[in-house]
């Protein structure tokens, strides 16, 4: 068991899923409440990483982060090194890769809040943002837990994007799934098996949390 790769993977997944909740909430808010006629295009774009081959996504991210792109140049100017083949680059790639897994549960749980509750909140003097904070977010606990857990689990297991954007640098970009690949390449099956089992157990636990959280309409709280 490669503990260095394990902790790197967990750190990556934790950072990415936390950031994704922060990024996902405003996107999901807009997707749930906007009445813009072209909204479906944004919905399609957000969901793209689900169907796109990870290598395709990884390739574009690599190009976008490279020293020839504006983002890459700006980053190099600011930090003195490029984004590609770094942990930061991996975080950016993973954010895109797991975006739909945080946004979609949030959109559906925001949309499931009764419109009459939003109306009641407005009649009681709360602006849309205050209503969102005091009514929609608390009633979307299950969606928040689902969004966090799914993007965490999805990031844990990513392979293609990591390989394209991060390469395979021990301690920097070598994640568990790449470690498994390396071990299989080296015909080290028993070690690969142990690592694979760890990923399997973690994924199962995370999905159990997701389904447990969604068991009741509004709640994983002690009151029900």
């Amino acid at each position, binding site marked *: 068991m490669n503990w260095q790769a394990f902790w790197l993977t967990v750190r990556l997944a934790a950072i990415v899923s936390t950031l994704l909740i922060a990024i996902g909430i405003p996107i999901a808010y807009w997707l749930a409440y906007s009445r813009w006629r072209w909204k479906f295009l944004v919905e399609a774009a957000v969901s793209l990483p689900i169907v796109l081959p990870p290598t395709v996504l990884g390739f574009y991210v690599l190009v976008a982060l490279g020293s020839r792109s504006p983002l890459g140049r700006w980053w190099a100017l600011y930090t003195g090194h490029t984004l590609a083949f770094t942990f930061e680059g991996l975080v950016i790639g993973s954010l895109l890769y797991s975006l739909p897994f945080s946004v979609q549960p949030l959109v559906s749980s925001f949309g499931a809040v009764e419109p009459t509750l939003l109306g009641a909140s407005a009649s009681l*003097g*709360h602006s849309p943002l205050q209503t969102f904070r005091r009514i929609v977010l608390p*009633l979307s606990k299950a969606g928040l837990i689902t969004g966090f857990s799914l993007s965490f689990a999805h990031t844990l297991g990513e392979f293609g994007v990591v390989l394209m954007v991060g390469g395979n640098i021990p301690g920097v970009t070598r994640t568990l799934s790449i470690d498994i690949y390396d071990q299989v390449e080296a015909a080290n099956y028993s070690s690969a098996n142990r690592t694979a089992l760890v990923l399997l157990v973690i994924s199962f636990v995370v999905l159990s949390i997701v389904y447990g959280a969604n068991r009741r309409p509004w709640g994983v709280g002690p009151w029900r």
Partner: protein
Amino acid sequence: MAVKIVIPARQAAPSAIEPVPISADLEVRIRKRFPNPAGSFNLNVHFRALAGFTILFGPSGAGKTTMLDCIAGLTDPDEGRITIGGEVLYDSDKSRDVPAWKRHIGYVHQDLALFPHLTADENVGYGLRALRASERRKRSAEILAAFRIDHLRDRRPAQISGGERQRVALARALVTEPRALLLDESLAALDRPTKLALVDDLRKWNQNHRVPILFVTHSGEEVYALGDEIVMLVAGRIVAQGRPHEVMHAPRVATVAHLSGFENIFDVTVVALNESRGTMTCRLANAEVELETPLVRAEIGSHLRVGIRAGDLLLATENPRGLSARNILPGTIRRLVQRDVIVAALVTCGGTGFEVHLTLASRDALQLCPGQSVWVVAKTHSCHLLSV
């Protein structure tokens, strides 16, 4: 149609909730196309509600809820103008549209819309965000006590009964001291005693506040219990407006659903008006039979329709005397038909057939049989007038 405002002789002791100094009336003129299962209607209304109860009465789908949503600012009319106490909330000509959360109008939705994750106390305190925590707690405790729900303060909506939820929803809307109160069939689900008690609480509250209260219902009973003023809405239009006894006693527009409640429907001609007694006499078409009915706004010679429920009619085997009922018509039983536990007696009186529903026991006790002479008895108020 001004509403006389009766100031109660004995004002309630001044409470910490200071009365709103000016009573502001609500003026609504809106036009909106709204979807309806039976096709789309144009909601097109113009009325003014003064302080006190104004009942919005009409069948479901008439546009009552859509209108309340427009007043609360939850949906926009296609055009129109909504003002309260002179302040313009919405004006399509001037592109003015105050957002719902700045309108300060209390709205109790049909499903109450209590926040499921908050306790009764937190629900009630929700609209008092602008106040300091201590003040908020004080106000919330006062209104919970006034509505006799202070023992439920730490419970969530799912843990309290329907009647208690209604109280919480009302208290939550009232504690913010809104400029107007919209109640959308908020009491419909309650049993009668609970409903009357709540109405009483509302009346007490409004003695101090004097705001317009728009109360939507499709129950005629609630109209009499509450109404200072009534606006009758059918298919998006106001068809009648005034004091309850005036509006409710106008000949009703007969819809299919309405007609189906009457087994006996007769076309009649008004022959005499007894305004001092509140009654009038109508002659049945193609018959010599006359009926005394409640007075409605009609002229002598006008054609109306009278509906009488078969269960409201009595049969007597001898000419009854000393009865309060004013319509006693001699006739002959043509047929007796048993339907489950009800006996339908078909009786002809002066050339017109009446259907009378009896119990099996009455049939047996009176030993009724076809061909027998009987008297059909109908109270004046069992005769419901419908417009043709």
